[in-house]
């Protein structure tokens, strides 16, 4: 068992509790690419590399798509943090990211209505059609 900031799990699972939206990973990264030139360049470099045939000489070393996605996610996390949002990746195997705020971050003088309204507003700026709800779950880590 491990205990981390009130977070308890056995060694092979992780849990989360977040209010926000469930976003398909590819849709999320595509949106981040449109919003952030740095992320766009990272994906563009990868796509350029994919155009080369085996044996062709390229003058730069491009990362794998998984590396690109991981780096993009780090940049996206910083972007969202400035909007008061967090990303819960829910492990590598799932198809979705969860964009919102960890429920444990509710402030002392903040009501549930205020907490949820602030998240809905922030999420709507990025994904206008996505509905927000409370997601609580666990995944293999």
């Amino acid at each position, binding site marked *: 068992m491990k205990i981390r900031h009130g977070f308890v799990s*056995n060694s092979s699972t992780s849990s989360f509790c977040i209010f926000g939206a469930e976003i398909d990973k590819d849709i999320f990264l595509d949106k981040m690419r449109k919003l952030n030139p740095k992320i766009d360049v990272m994906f563009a470099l990868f796509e350029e590399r994919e155009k080369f045939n085996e044996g062709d000489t390229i003058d730069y070393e491009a990362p794998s798509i998984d590396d690109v996605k991981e780096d993009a996610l780090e940049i996206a996390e910083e972007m969202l943090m400035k909007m008061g949002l967090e990303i819960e990746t829910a492990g590598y195997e799932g198809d979705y990211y969860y964009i919102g705020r960890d429920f444990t971050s509710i402030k002392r003088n903040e009501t549930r209505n205020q907490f949820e309204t602030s998240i809905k507003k922030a999420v709507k700026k990025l994904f206008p059609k996505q509905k927000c709800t409370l997601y609580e779950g666990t995944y293999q880590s």
Partner: protein
Amino acid sequence: MKIRNGFVSNSSTSSFCLFGICVDRNDAVKAAKLLDPEFDVEDSYDAGEVIAEKLHLTYSNGPPESDYVYIGRTAFDLKDDETGAQFKQSVRSALSSYFPDEDYSWYSEGWYDG
């Protein structure tokens, strides 16, 4: 992965997220007996349920074969006009008489059902 009222998990796991305490099962049995004199101390696994029912809280026995019980309120229980402070205070008020020395925290746990 499965979704149940916003609950995300794969099919062989259980999880919860609550604010409250994590107590030794023996302590939970003592509290359950105080709250319900007819509670049979041999049914130690039911202690959390008795406490939760009497105090209008939520409980979880944790992973199989664990010796502790989580008691408190889940995020789903928070009322629309209730603040974070009021939410936490309601848990402390309900439990402090029975568990005066426990630390209160958010607990989020997941485990395989086996």
